[in-house]
């Protein structure tokens, strides 16, 4: 088992003929992902490698029964692409695109409220269920199938964590990057709830960073609803206030959104907080093994 994606996931790629789209589609296919269609307006009828390309998401979904969209279109067109996928009732939409204006995402998020689709991202590495399906830009080989669910706001920091888990022999059920933007689709709580309900997930690693209050809200949820052990890590203890640290959402403003506040919230929710990223793998090994015994 896993959450959101597995070997039955049928992926269509919006922006499949672009440089990024092509490169990552090939990587996903070679990992074993079932990529059934691509969408690039005015390139319908062509193929990218073996994958048929369509003009619209609706047509692609109808002809190929795709149930997941991976989006690589540039930021100026990304909001449109997400809404197109949602209008075609694609179940899961994964938007990799970084740099979408907040104003666009405000509209998208309100539009999605009336649709059955789940959005992951934007500005995220995507989602992977190791050994089954990779919908994103993460390096496949560092992952290992297993019992740990990973949810994070960042990209390479997640790879670091996953790599350390794998080196400890701790495989992953599913790893999700929810993205570094202030307004995103799936949040920590959605993922925690899904991991809690997934019998294959025995433990959870949650990686947060400065900015907003998503971690604090997640911790309140954990305290009430999550029985599985959770390891937490927060990046940005040394981040100066008022500065946007790379991610559009990573900013400490008016004394809120600090790493320390998030770590405190984790402690209150009895999350096992790891403060030393260099030792995270070992730390997880201790937490999850003790609980196994």
């Amino acid at each position, binding site marked *: 088992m896993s959450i959101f994606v597995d070997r039955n996931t049928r992926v269509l790629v919006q922006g499949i003929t672009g440089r990024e789209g092509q490169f990552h589609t090939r990587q996903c296919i070679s990992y074993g992902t079932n990529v059934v269609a691509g969408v690039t307006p005015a390139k319908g009828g062509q193929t990218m490698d073996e994958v048929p390309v369509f003009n619209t998401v609706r047509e692609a979904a109808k002809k190929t029964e795709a149930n997941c969209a991976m989006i690589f279109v540039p930021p100026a067109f990304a909001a449109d692409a997400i809404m197109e996928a949602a209008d075609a009732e694609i179940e899961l939409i994964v938007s990799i695109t970084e740099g979408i204006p907040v104003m666009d995402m405000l509209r998208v998020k309100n539009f999605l409220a009336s649709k059955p689709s789940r959005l992951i991202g934007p500005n995220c590495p995507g989602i992977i269920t190791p050994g089954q399906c990779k919908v994103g830009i993460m390096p496949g080989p560092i992952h290992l199938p297993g019992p740990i669910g990973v949810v994070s706001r960042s990209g390479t920091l997640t790879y670091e964590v996953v790599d350390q888990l794998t080196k400890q022999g701790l495989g992953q059920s599913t790893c999700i990057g929810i993205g570094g933007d202030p307004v995103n689709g799936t949040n920590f709580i959605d993922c925690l709830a899904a991991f809690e309900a997934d019998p294959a997930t025995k433990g959870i690693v949650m990686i947060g960073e400065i900015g907003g209050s998503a971690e604090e809200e997640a911790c309140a949820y954990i305290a009430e609803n999550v029985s599985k052990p959770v390891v937490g890590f927060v990046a940005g203890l040394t981040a100066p206030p008022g500065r946007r640290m790379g991610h*559009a959402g990573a900013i400490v403003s008016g004394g809120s959104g600090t790493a320390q506040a998030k770590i405190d919230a984790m402690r209150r929710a009895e999350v096992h907080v790891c403060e030393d990223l260099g030792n995270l793998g070992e730390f997880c090994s201790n937490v999850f093994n003790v609980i196994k015994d």
Partner: protein
Amino acid sequence: MKIHEYQAKELFRNANIPVPEGEVAFSVDEACTTAENLGSYPVVIKAQIHAGGRGKGGGVKLANSREEVKNIASHILNMNLVTPQTGPEGKLVKKILVEEGLNVARELYLSILPDRATANIVIIASQAGGMDIEEVAAKSPEKIIRVAVNPLVGIEPYHCREVAFGLGLSPEVNKQFYAMLSKLYRLFVSRDCSLVEINPLVVTEENAIIALDAKIDIDSNGLYRQKDLEELRDTDEEDALEVEASRFNLNYINLSGNVGNMVNGAGLAMATMDIIKKAGAEPANFLDVGGGANAEMVENGFRIILADDNVQAILINIFGGILRCDVLAEGVVQAAQKTGISVPVVIRMEGTNVEEGRRILAKSGLNLITAVDLKDAADKIAEIVRG
């Protein structure tokens, strides 16, 4: 992106949102001319820097005559203004805004910003204008009016009424306020703002509603469709190295520490800064070279880190995904050969093509310290810092 008060007021003026008469001045002479043109005293002289709390730092003064304008303008121009938001180093004032004085009856607070959790656009208002809104929110939250607008629907009359009645405005002021708030909302949405704040918004003795102050932040992600706003960027207000870095699409923030670092990915970059702190040093910067970095970007990043005289050591931490380790290694070698390496450099690489990357570094003959993992990298940095 931040812009100046006088620029924000220009945007207000173009949107028919009332602001005091006034003009920006770059010299004492210009300030005197503007004051004369305004036709009556007193006038207000306001330092234009990208930081709040200017009044507290002595950057906002009232002048009752041409002579006073001259004295105050020459005092404020080129002063190093220290406010609660500038940090102790302060900011050099290069321009001032000269405005008509108003007969202020009431000072209010009004702002518009996106709410990240609910994806609404939120209007925040308070009768306690002219004060630090965070302080008001903390001490007397009941004084804060918060009205959420669904961005798909936009602002409706009832939103305006909720805010206006909350502010306790008189009937003759209400109408002006409705019109002003609607225009402000439309400005916020159409110009990709991430914050519009008026503190204070004043009601004059003559019952006019006027934005005495104006602050606008623009969402950098929206600048591609706001070309005219992009021109309002004032690089004088930014750190010189940060401006330089932005020319190469590098995400760099200059900090006051002694260990420079270069990382791919914002989250990992923040975590790497934390590791430097844990090792007993202070990060000299934040630098995310991004997922798609090439050798040239790495080289420029390296050069920018070294341009900071406080840097005593550098930690490079790359988790190769899209950015391959061999590309990173080539960039480092190129940079080192061109600029020379004056400080110890610890390199930790993992991920795509890591073996090839390590081979390139090893055969370069450069004096680089390689670390096998993050823990090792932290230990090696700690060792260097301890000397």
